[in-house]
């Protein structure tokens, strides 16, 4: 068998360098790779290419900081009844459902070949979001509970269908797609770089730094553009600030869901100065407008560095105080501990990433394994928790907030100066494939791009960490009380729009 191409994070290769193998070999290669725990699938997608369907699978080797890229090409007549990757490893399940929905591939042994997001350009235009094929149980003892798409709070839409035995959840099926805006198609039809950057900022508005960093790193790589230190600095600072801000907001929301009003108020107000810092830096509380390919409008001044240090000192004092109270209250721990458990085995089989994986003892953190930006300066240590429950995911947020402050304190005294001459960006290289991995606050974000012979985008693929992790939520709530669903959901805090695109 031809071995896959080997590339590093944020790099681009010629399309011809990716070996094209037969589908059977393609399947064997990737399924065998992922059998090794140091490997996981970061993206798997397909697109129309020279009258065929080209499939590209990207498996990250977390030990050697490389990504293994392989491909297969299918004739339009031979896309039915394929053997699935999923039958061999569950972590491919959503990728193959996506291939089924968007390109019409069918599998003879995929256990759950259901719609993903009812994309506007789906193959089966008769499939409608109103007729999603929910799993049913015939029993007079059990009942179903439907929640959404519109929820009680100010959150995005999605439908949750529970099958319950009394108060106990036996099964949860999550139906998404309500947020589908056609992001990936727009990446191709919007030709200006600024439009594409704006799109990247809007993939998930709570992960602006994460998705925009993935996009600009990928774009610069496609253009063969080495980013200056000050650009890397700004992106790294933005990513860690975003992590602190959203984690803090999530701690507030977890307090709200268990009725701990003081925690909700204090964590909520602690988020404010962090996002206001973005406001002072770039004029937008969620960092829209801050990250741009090849340049930066908002210099990180000495004055800003001083203010950030002061902010951390003030933040830490209040944060430690409320955390000290919060995590010792028996009524709080009673709600968080042993609730919504995802075992290590389950987390690994689903292919979870980011916080969800780390709360179940899986060392999965792109900052440590596939370094980018300035992360190599920190020698990042991956924090993991051992119980996979709501408490683990809560505690992990606390620990990561502290860690992010440690990282940022290390570098904000050494702000790189803007170069005297900034090289300008050229266009993307023709007939190339590029990949970019970024550790957003939720977890691993992966953007992939393929260009045609003129250097125009031929395909753009976005993968939000939520794509892997929604299934973990559905599994976590099994055998829990339905009243614990909100706290379970909040402990994952997954993205609807990041999934629906």
């Amino acid at each position: 068998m031809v071995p896959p191409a080997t590339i590093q994070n944020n790099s681009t290769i010629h399309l011809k360098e990716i070996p094209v193998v037969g589908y059977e070999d393609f399947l064997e290669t990737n399924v065998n790779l992922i059998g090794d725990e140091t490997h996981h699938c970061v993206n798997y997608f397909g697109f129309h290419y020279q009258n065929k369907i080209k499939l590209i699978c990207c498996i990250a080797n977390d030990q050697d900081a490389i990504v293994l890229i392989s491909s297969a090409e299918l004739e339009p007549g031979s896309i039915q009844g394929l053997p699935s990757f999923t039958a061999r490893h569950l972590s491919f399940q959503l990728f193959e459902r996506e291939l089924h929905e968007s390109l019409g591939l069918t599998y003879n042994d995929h256990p759950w070949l259901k719609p993903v997001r009812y994309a506007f350009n789906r193959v089966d235009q008769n499939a409608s979001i109103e007729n999603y094929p929910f799993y049913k149980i015939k029993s007079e003892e059990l009942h179903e509970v439907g929640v959404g798409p519109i929820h009680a709070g100010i959150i995005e839409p999605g439908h949750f269908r529970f099958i319950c035995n009394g108060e106990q959840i036996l099964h949860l099926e999550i139906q998404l797609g309500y947020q589908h805006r056609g992001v990936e198609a727009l990446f191709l039809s919007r030709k200006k770089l600024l439009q594409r950057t704006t799109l990247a900022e809007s993939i998930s508005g709570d992960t602006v730094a994460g998705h925009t960093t993935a996009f600009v790193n990928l774009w610069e790589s496609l253009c063969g553009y080495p980013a200056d230190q000050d650009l890397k600095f700004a992106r790294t600072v933005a990513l860690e600030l975003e992590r602190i801000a959203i984690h803090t907001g999530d701690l507030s929301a977890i307090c709200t869901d268990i009725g701990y009003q003081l925690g909700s108020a204090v964590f909520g107000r602690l988020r404010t100065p962090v996002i206001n810092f973005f406001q002072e830096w770039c004029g937008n509380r969620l960092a829209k407008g801050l990250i741009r390919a090849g340049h930066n409008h908002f210099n990180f001044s000495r004055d800003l560095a001083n203010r950030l240090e002061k902010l951390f000192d003030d933040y830490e004092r209040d944060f430690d105080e409320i955390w000290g109270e919060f995590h010792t209250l028996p009524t709080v721990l009673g709600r968080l501990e042993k609730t919504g458990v995802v075992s290590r085995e389950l987390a690994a089989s689903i292919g979870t990433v980011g916080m969800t994986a780390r709360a179940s003892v899986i060392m999965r953190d792109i900052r440590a394994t596939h370094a980018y930006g300035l992360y190599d300066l920190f020698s990042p240590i991956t924090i993991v928790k051992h119980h996979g429950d709501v408490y683990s995911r809560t505690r992990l947020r606390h620990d990561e907030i502290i860690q992010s402050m440690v990282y940022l304190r290390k570098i904000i005294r050494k702000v790189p100066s803007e170069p005297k001459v900034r090289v300008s960006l050229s266009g993307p290289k023709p007939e190339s494939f590029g990949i970019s991995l970024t550790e957003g606050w939720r977890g691993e974000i992966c953007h992939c791009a393929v260009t045609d012979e003129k250097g125009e985008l031929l395909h753009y693929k976005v993968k939000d960490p939520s794509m892997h992790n929604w299934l973990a939520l559905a599994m976590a709530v099994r055998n829990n009380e339905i009243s614990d669903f909100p706290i379970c959901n909040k402990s994952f805090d997954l993205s609807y729009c990041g999934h629906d695109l």
Partner: protein
Amino acid sequence: MIGNIKILVHQGMQSIPDITNAEIPGPFRGTPVITSEKVDERALVELCPTGAILSSPMRIDLGNCTFCGECAFAFPDKIRFTKDYKMATNDRSRLIVAEGKAQPIMLDPDLIKREISQFFKGSLKLRQVSAGGDNSCELELNACGNVNFDMGRFGIEFVASPRHADGIVITGPLTESMATPLQNCYDAVPDPKIIILVGTDAISGGIFAGSLALNRSFLDNHKVDLYVPGNPVHPLTFINGVLELIKERKNNLAEHRIST
């Protein structure tokens, strides 16, 4: 218990005392000012990612603007974003800021339904519907209710059920898949009811305008009571806009808002 009380004391009062005159720190991009400086108009129009810049005369449509500020960086003598966050209005055409004299964006009192101030001035309950929203406006709407902005002090709150609401607040570019749920939600709100569009995506589709995954027909069939621009909206823009909408007006005469 003692720990909790200590925290309460240490935190003290966190809310912004004067919500209508608060100042936003840093380089906020609010209502722009367009000078009559001669520039390469085509280049300026071409620059905008969403086509929010219109030429002869030069105008910026804040209902379509992503507030990225790129136009102001490229043509600093022509366009400048001020820190005026009071950008909400009930007249869509007032979101189009024209070249020349800077004017604050205000509501048109003649367009406000009489029952709004009659019923809602002291208490307005809203149901939020995200229809393809990217969760940025949603985060900011949540922030409106936190201890800093404390919108609840004005009787304005988000509620869990449309049946308890006086109106709906829509974010996002209105996706096809949300068309039916949005209509159902609106129908479930008892009369009289209002519609507020929050954020550029909701007002015009923003960067998603023209995407085949959208269905904006809801807006063809219903009158919008308030447009709140931003990407995402700033909580101060939202709260001040809503306060302007529901406040009691004497004699229905146009009032001049104190500009900031």
